[in-house]
């Protein structure tokens, strides 16, 4: 266990000294996951809202399907994106495999269903409360979507943070499509997996601490926003 404590101490030092490798990996993690969040939110939120308030054939099936996609296994998403982006794949000529862009695509696919599903629930609840009033005022169903998204803004921020938390902690998809290449596609989770298997616990633990701190931070912000919403908006 001496080794363990020694490693832990060195890991903390890495963080405090802002070790160049560590900082680079953390920043790439944030960049990839935050970038993935953009398309996931832009597609997931309107889609979730649409499914929530628009009646169409097979809507129940779509809702169940969307919920099921929340539990997509990251390695399977990674594999699918790998196949599409690989040299022989349909988008192989873009040369995106083993780039941060490929990782962004994979994470966006992973978290878009989460955001769509949670948004659907939020908007469906709101629609139940607002439907008569909005119809009375003359709003169409489609026209009500922006209003409802804005009304649910606090919960939707939390939804977004849930997506970010899932993306940043995910390893299966990014290790397949990114390849964990040093200084190119190495993010926190893939580095931890690699360094641990190499037996180099110091960097792995340093990154693990940062990852846990980030997760705590994201959750704390989400909690704080909910709390704030309850106080100012009743």
């Amino acid at each position, binding site marked *: 266990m001496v080794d363990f404590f020694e490693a832990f101490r060195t890991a903390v030092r890495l963080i405090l000294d802002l070790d160049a490798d560590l900082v680079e990996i953390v920043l790439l993690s944030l960049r990839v996951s935050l970038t993935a969040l953009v398309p996931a939110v832009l597609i997931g939120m309107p889609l979730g809202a649409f499914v929530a308030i628009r009646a169409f054939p097979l809507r129940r099936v779509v809702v169940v399907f969307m919920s099921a996609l929340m539990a997509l296994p990251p390695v399977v998403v990674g594999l699918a994106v790998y196949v599409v982006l690989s040299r022989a794949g349909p988008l192989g000529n873009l040369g995106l495999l083993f780039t941060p862009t490929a990782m962004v695509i994979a994470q966006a696919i992973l978290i878009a269903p989460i955001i769509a599903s949670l948004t659907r629930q939020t908007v469906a609840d709101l629609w139940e*409360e*607002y439907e*008569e*009033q909005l*119809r*009375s*005022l*003359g*709003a169409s169903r489609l*026209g009500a979507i922006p*209003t409802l998204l*804005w*009304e649910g*803004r606090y919960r939707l921020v939390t939804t977004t943070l849930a997506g970010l938390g899932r993306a940043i902690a995910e390893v299966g998809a990014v290790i397949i499509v990114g390849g964990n290449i040093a200084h190119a596609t190495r993010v926190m989770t893939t580095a931890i997996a690699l360094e641990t298997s190499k037996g180099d616990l110091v960097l792995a633990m340093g990154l693990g601490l940062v990852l846990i701190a980030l997760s705590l931070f994201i959750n704390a912000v989400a909690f704080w926003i909910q709390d704030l919403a309850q106080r*100012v*908006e*009743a």
Partner: protein
Amino acid sequence: METPARTLLPIELEDVGYAVRKARPLVGVSGVFSQGPLTVVIGPNGAGKSVLLRLCHGLLEPSSGKIRLGLETREDRIRAQAMVFQRPVLLRRSAAANVDYALKLRGVSAADRPGRVRAALEAAGLGSVASRAARVLSGGEQQRLAIARAWALRPEVLFLDEPTASLDPQAVQHIEGLVRSIHRSGTKVIMTTHDLGQAKRLADEIWFLHRGRLVECAAAEEFFRSPATSEAQTFLEGKLLL
């Protein structure tokens, strides 16, 4: 030659019924809401008062019978009316922004909106809370805001569904005053209540519903002096009407 502006009124109901599955909250109602009297729809809980309002307002479609309105297009009909619900549904934004939202939906220009927002809030005695979040206002203020928002639309007909249920007497008085001034301004008010005292204070005309049927429809004074039906008598005596 100039044609007179078309109006939504009179609203003519011909044998109107509404059914959901096995329940029939409204059965064979015929009558006319016309310009002029402040109409109060009364009756015990479950009499079909809210359903009647929702049918006239267009939120529900009658299962049988016909509702004839003066205006033809959906657009014109929506514009000519507004409704206030028992539980005010306010948006999570300021009081002023709630009124502004409704005006914007009706296509009132950005230049005209601030003035109309202010006028409506002041008429409802809410000028001082214009910038407060709507959902933190008191129950009475919230309902006044809902009424102000509806009134700002300058509807020809205003439906109010139990607007003072679960409010304290002072808030009720405030809202009744507001309803009176809306009526005086020329808007046709059609409201429901199960509070007989309120019906007496406000109504020019009474529609008395019981078990989904229109049992009596009369001038308020006459209705309260000498109700024509035994059901109305029982109800007015404060007995349980089963």
